[in-house]
């Protein structure tokens, strides 16, 4: 699944560390950014690259919040449900997103553009309410701002 040139880059990156295992999450992130989510075949290739068994990769991959083991949309919207955002209009942001996209948490829009997921405090409480899309943060959300942000994402 991984193209040869990317594989070589990854192999070089892994070879440069003392413990190949240390690189497992970095490799997963690179592949996830490229392919959208960590599918079984990808996971198995990661395992082979870093010298782990698929189970060992799965043990780690399933531990974390931002590794997607199921297909997701092109953009994953993580709405912050941390206590500060919760206090400051989290519910209306979520309601707006739900009705705008017609999906609930854990779902993907029919056009495959967006997946909606919650996330814990993003560390942008000074700009609550906030959300994260493709590891980029958007704060001080209002319906207008959400429209604007989503409009730019194809």
């Amino acid at each position, binding site marked *: 699944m991984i193209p040869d040139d990317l594989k070589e880059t990854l192999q070089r990156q892994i070879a440069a560390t003392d413990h190949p295992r240390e690189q497992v999450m970095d490799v997963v992130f690179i592949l996830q950014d490229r392919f959208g989510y960590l599918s079984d075949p990808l996971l198995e290739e990661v395992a082979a690259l870093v*010298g782990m*068994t698929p*189970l060992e990769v799965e043990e780690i991959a*399933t531990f974390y919040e931002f590794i997607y083991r199921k297909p997701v949309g092109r953009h994953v919207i993580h709405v912050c449900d941390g206590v500060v955002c919760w206090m400051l209009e989290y519910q209306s942001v979520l309601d707006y997103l739900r009705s705008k996209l017609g999906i609930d948490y854990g779902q993907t829009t029919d056009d495959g553009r967006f997946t909606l997921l919650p996330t814990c405090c993003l560390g942008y409480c000074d700009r609550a309410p906030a959300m994260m899309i493709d590891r980029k943060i958007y704060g001080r959300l209002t319906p207008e701002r959400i429209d604007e942000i989503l409009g730019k994402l194809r």
Partner: protein
Amino acid sequence: MPKLMIDDRKIEVAPGVKVIAAAEQAGIVIPRFCYHPALGSVGACRLCAVKFLDGPVRGLQMSCMVEARDGMVISSTDDEAVDFRRFVIELLMRNHPHDCPVCDEGGYCLLQDETIAGGHAMRRSMGKKRTHRDQYIGELVQHEMNRCIQCYRCQRFYQDYCGYRDFGVMGSASRVYFGRYADGALENPFSGNLIDICPTGVLTDKPARFKGRRWDFQRAPSICIHCSLGCSITVNARYRELVRVEARRNDDINGHFICDRGRYGFAFANHPDRPRQARINGRDTSYEEAIQTTTQRLSEIARTLGPDSIACLSSSRAGVETQMSLKFLTRSQGWRQPGCFVDRSEQNSVTAAVGRLTPERVVSLGEIEKADLILVIGVDPILEAPMLALAMRQAQRAGAGIIILNPQPVSVPFAYDHRPISPDDLCSTLQKWTRSISSQTRTESHFVEKHEEYRGPETPSVPCPLPPVDSLLQNSRRPMIVCGTNIVGTAIIHAAADLARDIHSDCRFPGLFYVLPGPNAFGAAFASAGGKSFSDILPDIETGNIKALILVEADPIFQFPDQERVKNAVKQLDLLVVLDYVPSRSVGFAGQSLAEMVSPAPLHVVIPTLTHFETQASFINQEGRLQQTTPVHVNGLPMSQLTGGKHPPRKFRSDVPGAGARAAWQVLSELEAVLSSTPADSITFADIWYRIGLAWNISVENRTEIPGNLRILSTTVESEPMTEHYRDD
């Protein structure tokens, strides 16, 4: 040595012992889930809380995480500790299904016990229970994830203790899941221990599912006979059927665990084709008739052709009593001495190994774990003695280096230093090291300190560079020489023993550990002293010099490689007597009668014998340890075979159907008595041991129950000289 008080009991323990283990030494068992003596402490379940009332540590603490120290005053019954433990149980039961009635763990479930003991009986939580999907993890272990209490024992056993990497823990928080990446059979040849280790019913014995409750089973301590290590097991039977085998703790040998072969390899005892009735030429007959026919024909042959025309063969799977009874029989009749091996070179190898084990050098499997350097010569541990591989892994986890001398790499669950020495050079290499070390002065440094960086269970079977073997041996305090007897010849067996002998010094205490081909190969070496292997008597059968062959729990007719030759040889016999408990080739000729197979056919007498599950039997393991099994049930047709798997019949009868078998030594003693015209009906187990004691010049005080720590070594017992009759070709 720290002195402390636990529940008003004073105890003194070794330094470094955790409070939970210290309490156990004083007879106080503190509740626990995650702690296991073999797996150590991880402080996960939090059930072992006790109150530290005085001393260096105070307050509510986990007894598995705190080392016993001087002056501690500890209470395991303190109100707060008890309430905390009740709380932990309440939390665990919140998600545990109430499926005890259909759970195979029911009745010997640690969770049930601790729930009752902890006093949690009322469910207060109103939440939904967490549920999981189960996985197919093979035919041996059943997976029922909903019952999991997350003690992490399985994962720690599987990955850390055993070094296998296909089962583990996934997810996080309250969604942790113990299983495999995908459905499929577990790769770990020790996977069955998961059943013993899991404190609840997540991992249960799959073949034994729904066969009965623990309290329904007849249970008895026993010994595994699947390799020469002789691990301790507990066997469970119900309705005359062997149902399951569990590991039995034995710190000298197998510790807490056994391998899967040992756990699941009991089907032979329930085999539907198992011989249960005496047979003459394929026709069922009475035991008495079989004995009479046999003795008559034997007397005839001895009279007409001389006692040399009768040959007997037992095996390394037969118990000591059987092997020795055969020896007594041949001796009393003046026949040829019995053999115990199919092949000459095997007899030579085993005899050489047994001859070289001395009290100073011999070590048990348990001591392998304490080695700091292990040299493995010509053994494939997982194949020949699985638990040896696990013991070596534990040694390595504690810092030992492992060097494997084998032409090809072997598959073992630990990192090792592979020295691919060709079989031709092996002997001279060993001799070279022996010379090199015996001539060097001793050094004080230890292997462990010097080569710490080479440790690492993380990278199984990645060979790592190590310095020359002789200098490693030189620097080791507890080197162990592990040597096989299967693919290596006597020269290497002797070279290994020489090495162990000559590297012994004031600061070096080497151990010598042979792996033998069979649970009682050691006894076979004694019993076959002066006798010949099957391959050596075969020419005499072919030329007609041997006219009667008695096979006792031996199957050379199947095991001898040249089957055509055996078939032709059998035609020359007048009488073939087979005593066995398995439907072997020699017993059954694969469903055909002997007459259908060969012509002219000899008279074919089959007398069924008992397995070690049905009679007391003794085995000497590869380190000379004499161990005994206890019968778990009476022999007879399993109820499931009698009723076709249906409910036990409601009609009663006074006999046990299919109970025609006798212990092989009993049959042999009876043959001896009839042939010698002495009374036959009074030969007991104690009588046999009286004779064995005389033969070996050992005193066994209680002849019906021999202690498990008695070592029978060639240097300590008297037997006929165990010469190697033949050189290696």
